[in-house]
């Protein structure tokens, strides 16, 4: 049995130690907002926060996540910056298919939390691990700048 702290709640799951955190969130805790895209930390669709740090949940064995604070897209609105990111995403019509956007929002929230005024280069560095096949990158960049200039 493994204990996890997810979005402020304690959960106990009976799964193999090696099962990736992503699949525990999706299958065992029914939190399907974090997406499976590549399984190898190449696309960022599974990004969650582990103790506030953006982390690819698809390659983190669940046992390694125990004892850490895990935050997912389902509760990111409880962070002030997370809610701002969601609102900016909506205002700029960022999502298209939307499948990568949970990961994008978690990555952007982490960026803006640690750096309230990111440069384009900062955005490149923080966001280039998150693939979007619909090509929403220009709007993501714009949304991040919008939050930084208007609300932080």
């Amino acid at each position, binding site marked *: 049995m493994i204990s996890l702290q997810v979005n402020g709640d304690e959960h106990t799951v009976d*799964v*193999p130690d*090696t*099962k*990736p955190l992503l*699949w525990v969130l*999706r*299958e*065992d805790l*029914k*939190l*399907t*907002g*974090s*997406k*499976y*895209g*590549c*399984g*190898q930390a*190449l*696309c960022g*669709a599974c990004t969650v926060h582990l103790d506030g740090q953006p982390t690819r949940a698809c390659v983190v064995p669940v046992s390694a996540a125990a004892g850490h604070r895990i935050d*997912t*897209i*389902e509760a*990111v*609105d409880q962070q002030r910056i997370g809610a701002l990111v*969601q609102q900016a*995403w*909506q*205002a700029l*019509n*960022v*999502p*298209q*298919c*939307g*499948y*990568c*956007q*949970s990961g994008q*929002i978690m990555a952007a929230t982490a960026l803006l939390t640690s750096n309230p005024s990111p440069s384009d280069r900062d*955005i*490149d*560095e923080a*966001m*280039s*691990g*998150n*693939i979007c*096949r*619909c*090509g*929403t*990158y*220009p*709007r*993501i*960049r714009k949304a991040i700048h919008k939050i930084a200039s208007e609300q932080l």
Partner: protein
Amino acid sequence: MDTMLKRRQFLRVTALAGGGLLVACGGGSSSSPSPTPPDSSNPDSAPGNGGDPAETFAVGEFLRISSDNSIRVLVGASEIGQGALTAIPMIVAEELDADWSRVTSAHSPVAAQFDNPYFGALQFTVASAATRGYFAAQRRAGAAVRHMLIAAAAERWNVEPSTLRTEKSFVIDDANQRSASYGDLAEAAAAQNVPINPPLKDPANYTIIGSTRQRLDAVRKTNGSEIYGMDVDIPGMLTAVIARPPRFFGQPQSVNSNAALAIPGVLEVFTIPSGVAVIANDFWSAEQGRKALEVSWNEALAGRTDSAQTRSNYQASLNLPGVPVRSDGAVLLAQAAASDVLSADYFFPFMAHAAMEPLNVTVDYTGSAAEIWTGSQSQTIDRLFAASILGLLPEQINFHTMTSGGGFGRRGNPLSDYVRDACHVAKTLQQPVKVIWTREDDMKGGYYRPAASVRVSAALDNNGTITAWTHRAVTQDVTSSLYFEEQLDTLAEMELPPLGELNDLETGMPYAIDNVHMDAHLTLIPQMPSLWMRSVNKFSDVFAQETFIDEIAHRYSRDPYHYRREMLGNNPRLLAVLDGVAQAANWGNPPAGRSQGIALIAHWQSYIAQVVEVSVTGDRELKVHRVVSAIDCGTAVNPDLVVAQVESGVIFALSSVLFGEIELRDGVVQQSNFDDYPVLRMHQTPQIDTVLMPSGDNPGGVGEIGVPAVGPALANAIFAATGEQIRELPLKNLNFVIA
């Protein structure tokens, strides 16, 4: 098509118990009500929390006005990111004069009433045809219901209908200073006669069409609550992965499942036609089980396609005449009289769609009925194949079209490969099961954009005027797998678009050239599954055409923009976007150190010209700085969605042009994930500017139009910078370092 449109003019309007009205569109309205809500898997779509059964949608009913004045529209097109579930309701809402803030939408069930008129008897979200296909029928439906609401109010107030107007879901009687909401009038409106040919709005009076509106799914797609096929969870559901042969259409010969079955959570291993299914309680166990599986494959009939061999075969075919696609004037005479004849050969590799959501299907098959949940661009045909495999009638299958995490054509396979796989698993299992493809399964699973070779030639007079143009394409018939399997019987009862349209080889070469000959070789390689991918053959054909135009312009010291301009005198819409993009991009005056390239295409009833700005360093570091597009899509139903689609097309094209290549060696796909099949990332994304120049004509398609001209405009910019002629893709293979 005419018959189809006439049939579609028929609406069936019924009152809802407790107020409100339902509108059913098109024929076949005798269908009995669906036993369950068509989209019960979507939490947002459960009407009234499953309350009054009279509030449940029935098959075919596409519009509901509820007594609380909310309006819900069911959409027959698939939401694959393009905004179909926003744009199509906007069309109905416009003619209805609805209060847009109270409109919601969801996917329709699979039913004839929801077929896309563009294709006839199919729900099929391909060919940039959602908005333009549904436009006319949705307008008529909205106008008819508005007419009935006015008639109901006129009856209630005992006034002439012509004295009433509508605004934001109210009928208003200005003379007597009174109004009634649509929700209030709905029940009475349902009793009115349905007008056969309701007058439509003058587009000058549009208030919703042509205005930017937030996507109706924007909130769900930013808080993790949108339910994709991958997220479907039903009681008792198992998870399956399928071990597939290393070469396409290999067959499992012997299977040792002992080690797989020893993995905790793995329940069953069995063979299906396409491979070996591993069934488990959860994905991770299934995946571990598959890794432990030992399978030997019979590859006697397996595909042995080899990229290098394909290229050399196609190159040889370029020397042979193909099947004519277009023939104007007398090319041979013009060539004989020309002062110069130039030609160039091009090659384009296989490419994978690589949508963000890997393929997946959930099937609940009980023996006498089934439910299927999947992101699909081709639900009508998918359901038909599912029925044939499960031994059911199509009507016995409740097919839930899920929001797709991208499609790009891969989820619109007329062979329904991934749905068939899942149905074979479910038929054996007779228990709810989700078949999940990993990224590697998806990347190696075939149905790629086919490789292609193109040869273009131009005959020229002394002034550099093109007197004859030829274009020969060699590529694979994207329907060729149809000939391989026993699918034709299943498809025989379908009204499929003609194969010519599926392959869509007309390139729309727009220039005023008197003598034109275009032909094509469509090779049949049944063991090499190919499929349309966003912009289909326009990706390769327009690349060749538009880069070659620049080579000619350069040879005769002509500016590529002006050279094109002079050949577009008869094409005012293309000329307008060409001038538009030249102005927006400040053509001819790039920032220091940068070069520009220009290209254009008209297709899908839309027109676009694009300018790409690059820099290339001495050590071949290639940086794409800016892409400017000018587009005329007739009517931009939701302008911001059009801009988003152009941005999307540009980035999709850059991924393909810079990196896109699936390589096969002796039948084995070499790529597996985003490490060896890279796509564009944030740091490589240029500034993208898009100018809308809508002419006001009927809406054209916008999902693909942003793609084909980007590659040639980029290659032309490299040509301008370095003099290097780009004759093959992707650019990473030409030793460019992508910055």
